[in-house]
Structure formats: C-alpha cells, structure tokens
C-alpha cells in the first residue's frame, strides 16, 4: 500500500517493533475471544450450526440440495438480468441526459440576436425552461430513495394505464430513473472538468457544439469516469435486491421462499450464503474499478492531464449518493 500511512511514522525501531508485536498478539487474542463468546457461542447454543440448517445449502448429498441451488441459480439469473438491463439502459439514457444538459447549458447563453425579437425571446424562454426542467428532474430523482422510486413506478405506472406485464420492467425502470441521473451527472462533470482548450480547439476546427460533445468531450469523459462507472455497476447489483419489495423474484426474494419451504427454516444460513456470493462478486468488480483507475492514472501522469484520484469505496459512496464527483 503506497499511501499516506507510510510517511505518518518512522520505520519502527526494535522497541517499537516489540510493542507492535505485543499489541498484535493482544489484538488477535481479543478478536478470537470476542468472536467465540459474542458470536460463536450464542449461535451454537441456539443450534445455528446444526447440519439440519446448513445441509440444504452446503451438503451435496442432502436430498433438497439440488432443488435449493436450482432455485438460487434462477434467483441469481433474475438478479443479473435486471442488473444488466438496468445498467445498459441507464448508460444510454444517462449519456443522453448528460449531452442534453451540456447542450442546453450552451443554448441558454445564446441570445439569438440575428432573429426577430419576439422569436428570440421565445427561443430563449424555451431553452431556459428546458434547462430548468432537466435540472429539476435530476435533483428529484437523485434525492429520492431508490426503494421509493421502484415502489412508485411499480404501482403508479399501471395506475396511469401503462401495463408492462412483467414485473422485471418496473424494476428496470425504477433502477434506470435513478441511475441514469447519476451516470448523467458523472459524465457531465467529466465533460465540464476537461481543459477548456479541448472545446475551443474543436470549435476552431469548425465542429458544431453537438459534434464537439460527441467526438471530443464525451469519449474523454467516458475514459476519465470509467472507474466511477464500474463502481456504479456495484451499486446497481446491490440495488436489484430491492426488487423484493415489488415481488420480483430476484435472489433475495427466492431465498425467502426457500427458507419457508424447508422443513427447518434457516434464514441466517441462507442469507449468509447469498450475502457471501454478493460480497465476492462486488469485491471483484470494485477491484476491477481500482485496477482501471490505476492504469488510467499511469497513462495520464505521463501526459500531464488531471488524475481522478479516489479509492473506489469513496467513489461508490459518492456515486450512490447521486454522483457528486
């Protein structure tokens, strides 16, 4: 780890090393004792380690093991499908939103002096109105809990006469509404963070504002923001678990059903297994984000461009909070 902590204190001498060693041993003992008395023993006393409860999940010879895993597999598949659809549609819509907001921003500054006065005012008013609407849209959906958005989409859309048939689509729309706004803001701040020379050079070459955005700004913003976008994958994957609220049969919902169908309901065991799988997948994804970030940083350093430097968890946190980067 090549970060700050190495310079916070001197290389330890013999005395400091002894103290650290003793401290380590004490800490390990405390952790083991705590783990045993606070976690292992109470669970064991309640029989939570019994094979009746764990068997269906970890013992391939258990008669329901194949059934349980078949259903968990279906659940994971449903989770991945929802996550994949949500991330793709959020990327598309988010990019569109970012481009729209950048365009509107430059349009609002235009005064249309070559046009007749009433028409110029009309156009300026329209631009101002559209940019206000897009701003409000962004503020509302990034300020609302995703749970509420999903719950609302699933119950309000049918009320308004939009019947999508499969619950999957309500979940995807709910997730998209939120994530497109976040991705849009990530890309927009990426584009606005680029050196002004990029835009000026493009304009000097005679590219229209839209061409500038599409050919010059957007590709660079994507590159800089790639780690943040990968972090967003983690967020979406975690958020699909909210599908249980609208009865979408993703892995957590399926787990609840399995738990009740077993002769010995085993909520703690099942959720531990599902949680572990979630953690492994997301850990791999966030490692990928870190790797991409390091590679980008290396490439940028040599060219003297700004380096986005944030550990991926901080990225996730900010992305989750609504893309304030």
């Amino acid at each position, binding site marked *: 780890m090549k970060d700050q902590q190495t310079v916070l204190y001197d290389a330890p001498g013999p005395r400091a090393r002894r103290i650290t060693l003793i401290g380590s041993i004490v800490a390990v003992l405390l952790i083991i004792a705590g783990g045993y008395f606070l976690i292992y023993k109470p669970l064991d006393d309640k029989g939570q380690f019994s094979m009746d409860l764990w068997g269906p999940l970890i013992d391939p010879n258990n008669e329901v093991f194949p059934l349980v895993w078949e259903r968990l597999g279906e659940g994971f598949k449903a989770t991945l499908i929802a996550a994949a659809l949500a991330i793709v549609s959020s990327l598309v819509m988010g990019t569109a939103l970012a481009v729209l907001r950048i365009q509107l921003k430059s349009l609002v500054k235009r005064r249309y002096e070559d046009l007749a006065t009433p028409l110029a005012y009309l156009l300026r008013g329209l631009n101002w109105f559209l940019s206000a609407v897009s701003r409000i849209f962004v503020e509302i959906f990034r300020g609302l809990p995703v749970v509420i958005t999903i*719950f609302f989409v699933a119950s309000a859309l049918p009320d308004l006469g939009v019947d999508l048939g499969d619950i999957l689509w309500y979940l995807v729309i709910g997730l998209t509404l939120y994530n497109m706004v976040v991705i849009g803001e990530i890309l927009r701040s990426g584009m606005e963070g680029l050196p002004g020379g990029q835009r000026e050079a493009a304009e000097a070459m005679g590219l229209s504002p839209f061409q500038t955005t599409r050919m010059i700004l957007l590709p660079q913003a994507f590159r800089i923001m790639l780690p943040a976008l990968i972090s967003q994958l983690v967020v979406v994957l975690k958020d699909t678990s909210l599908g249980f*609220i609208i009865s979408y049969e993703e892995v957590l919902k399926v787990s609840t059903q399995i738990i009740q169908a077993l002769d010995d309901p085993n909520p*703690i065991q099942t959720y531990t297994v599902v949680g572990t799988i979630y953690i492994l997948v997301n850990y791999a994804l966030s490692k990928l984000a870190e790797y991409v970030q390091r590679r980008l940083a290396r490439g940028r350093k040599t060219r003297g461009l700004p380096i986005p430097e944030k550990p991926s968890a901080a990225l996730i946190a900010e992305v989750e909070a609504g893309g304030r980067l």
Partner: protein
Amino acid sequence: MSVLVDHFDVFASGFWLTFQLCLLSAVGALLMGTLGAVMRISPVPPLRWVGTAYVTVFRNCPLTIVFFFAAFGLPSLGSNADFLKIPGLDSLFTRLGIDLPYFRFGIIALSLYTGAFVCEAIRSGINAVSPGQAEAARAIGLTFTQNLRFVVLPQAWKAAIVPLGSVIIAMIKNSALAGFFGVVGDLSNGAQNLTSALGEPIIPVFVGVSIGFLIMTAPLGLLLDRIERRRTVAR
C-alpha cells in the same frame, strides 16, 4: 391530493421518525467510520485487517442483507441492542427506549453499512494530503499524534467533507428501507400503510413521501455543491 391534508399527521410523524433515525444513524456511522479509519492506518497489523475486512464486507453487501442480519441475526446472538437505550437520549428520541428493538436494529444496520463508506471517505481525505506535508512535519520533530492532529487531519478534513456529505445523503435515502424491517411509522412504512391498508391513491402519497425525503436531501446536496464549487475556484 386531499390525502396530503387528511393524513398530514402520518406524513409529519413519519418525517419526524425518519429524521430521528437518520440523525442517530449519522452519528453512529461517523463513529464507526472513524474507528474503522483509525484501525486501517494503525501500526498494528491485526487491527488493520479487521478494519479492511469491515469495509470490504459492508460496502459490497446489499443493504437489504445488512438490515436482515440486524433484525434477525442480532436476536440470534441474544442481543436486543439494549445498549442503545441511552438514558436521557431516550426521552428525546422516544423510540430508542421502547421494548420493540427494531428502531435500534435499524440504527445499527444503517450505522454499520454507512460506516464503511465513511471510513473510505476519511481515508481518501487522508490520502489527499500531500506526503510532503507529513514528511515535513516529521522533519521538524512532531510525533505521530502531533503529526495527525496538527498537520494531516486538518487538511484531510477539508478534503473529506464533500465525500462525507455525499455518504450522509446516501444514508438518508437508504433509511427508507427501515420501514420494511420492522420500524413502524417512518415515512416509507407510513406510505405503505396508506396505500395498502387504507387504499389511498398512490401518486399523492408518493408526492408526500418525496417531499419528506427531499426536505432532508436537497438542501444538503445544494450545500455540498456550493462548498465544492468554492473549493474549485480557490484551487
């Protein structure tokens, strides 16, 4: 829209409860996060491992699962989270002291989950301080604690405030899940009750709940935007 007027008490009390939950959880998350960050930069390796494990587990796990373990795992460990029945505090936050422990479980779930992100925000702040600063501080003879206290942390704090604010905004939004794990009467549970048990129309209820959340998140967000903009100009 009459439901907003007729059931104003549901929204008002829901807002108040969600606000309490967020306030207490924010304090808990800052404590957990600071503790985690201290562990992660401590010279004692096992503590560093614990800190890293904590962050890795909680930031990669869906909040739903964290909530589940708080509401059903803790009782299996024999705990009703009674240590949160803090005398004095429970007269202001009445839910803290009642027998039903789900409000306390909600605080624990949100604190643990958010703490992992707070920890990373603090760490990113510390990492943002140029190593030359700490080196220079050591060169003039400051000890580890002095170094942290007078040189690194004051600068780290500045770099960490915006990510920290974002984390807290995310937490406020995440608190909506508490209503699905036994906290009765918060904004999301109140909304569910209005639409499902009382059959109120969905859209006005949604508007009410949205206003409740936006009252908390929107001003914080605007404040952060301002801090950030001012910082960019200063830089």
